[in-house]
């Protein structure tokens, strides 16, 4: 891989510029779908971009007694973490940065934003933010375990820790989703919780804690944080597509060169939109549950299901099925 192609990959195509556009498009798709489900019109196409620019122009208020650099740095680190994670998710074929074990790296990078949200909330000397931060932390453990297990399943089936290999294992058309539907369901719900979307938007419960950990965050910081949240949404969905729905492969079509890449990307794009549609439907269909209910439900239902799926996957491996 020559340096130029790597730089192009990093900054232009699946990298920085494309990611910005894709993230805003995902947010528009999510909000438009939510609106149409609620019998409303929904935002115009460029709304997320307009929100971002508007926030950039807003005054950057720094809470007294809080280090401005820390408050400014946290959203940037979160943004960097999820943007890097996106590089490892194969869009066209294998990602040039792919390496054995990059699944673990992606999972770790996706966890970072929540921890940063906790630090952001805890250090912003605001009672709403502090309570929201504690909620974000307690919610972290509830969904992190099932999400890891749900990602472990496909890796187990493909006997590899590299996302690219998992995708290739499904190239033959036998998607993990068909083999482990339970795992897919757990992954979807856990991703909804990880992204703190209704019914799991407990840390930022608008009607109770104003904006939770983000209460004191304004201007550029909020703009970057929302962007990081959009990218996390896209990266999470792309990861699920790669692990469960065969990523950029279309069963029975193995073309090389430009055409193959285009079809691969098209498949990936459609599948990601489907996953985002499911997430938007969940967001529209239910109300927010309380933190104590989430914790009990998480450990009583979500994690056992994930473990069951892993057990089934191991038994299947033993029997010799893929």
């Amino acid at each position, binding site marked *: 891989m020559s340096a130029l192609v790597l730089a192009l990959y990093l900054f232009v195509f699946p990298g920085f510029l494309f990611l910005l556009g894709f993230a805003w498009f995902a947010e528009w798709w999510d909000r438009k*779908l939510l609106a149409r489900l609620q*019998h409303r*019109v929904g935002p115009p196409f460029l709304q997320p971009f307009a929100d971002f620019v508007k926030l950039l122009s807003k005054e950057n208020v720094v809470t007294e007694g809080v280090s401005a650099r820390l408050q400014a740095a946290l959203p940037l680190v979160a943004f960097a973490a999820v943007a890097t994670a996106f590089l490892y998710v194969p869009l066209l074929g294998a990602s040039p940065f792919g390496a054995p074990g990059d699944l673990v790296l992606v999972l770790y990078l996706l966890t970072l934003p929540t921890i940063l949200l906790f630090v952001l909330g805890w250090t912003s000397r605001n009672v709403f933010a502090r309570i929201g931060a504690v909620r974000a932390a307690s919610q972290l453990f509830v969904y992190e375990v099932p999400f890891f297990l749900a990602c472990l399943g496909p890796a187990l089936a493909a006997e590899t820790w590299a996302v690219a290999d998992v995708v290739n294992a499904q190239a033959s058309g036998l998607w993990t989703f068909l083999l482990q539907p339970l795992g897919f369901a757990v992954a979807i719900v856990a991703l909804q919780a990880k992204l703190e979307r209704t019914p799991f938007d407990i840390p930022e419960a608008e009607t109770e804690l104003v904006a939770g950990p983000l209460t004191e965050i304004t201007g550029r910081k909020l703009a970057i944080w929302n962007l990081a949240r959009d990218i996390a949404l896209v990266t999470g969905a792309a990861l699920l597509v790669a692990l469960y729905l065969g990523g950029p492969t279309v069963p029975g079509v193995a073309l090389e060169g430009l055409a193959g890449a285009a079809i691969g990307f098209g498949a990936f794009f459609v599948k990601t939109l489907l996953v985002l549609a499911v997430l938007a*439907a969940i967001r529209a*269909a239910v109300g927010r549950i309380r933190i104590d209910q989430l914790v009990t439900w998480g450990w009583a239902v979500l994690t056992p299901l994930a473990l069951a799926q892993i057990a089934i996957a191991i038994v299947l491996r033993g029997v010799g099925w893929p």
Partner: protein
Amino acid sequence: MTKEQREPPERPGVLLPEMARHLFGRPATQRYPAERIPVPKGFRGRIEVSDEHCIGCSKCALVCPTDCIEMVSDERDVAMGARTVHRKKKPIVHLMSCIRCGLCEEACPTDPKAIYLTEAFGGAYERKDVVVG
């Protein structure tokens, strides 16, 4: 709902069928001001004063609950039925305090009414609209 009827199971996402139906239907949002919605007959809109019918009897000013009708001096001859009346003052309405109750229109003795509610949906758009009459 009688008790024998099987108690439907509690489950999340009960609105999903209806949501699916709306997904492809036309949204219910009324796109005002792009699409003007028809105002029903008898809608109590902005108030108007017609100068040529007003005989300056100030009944409207007396009956107005918020005292937002002020009589200003304005000499003029007005035809009232067969005879003409020389009036000395006429009402001006302070729209910001007007609650559009229509009592002034009921109290006005002229025919056609000198002060009446129109079906104009909008209120005062610019400063000059604030006082009518």
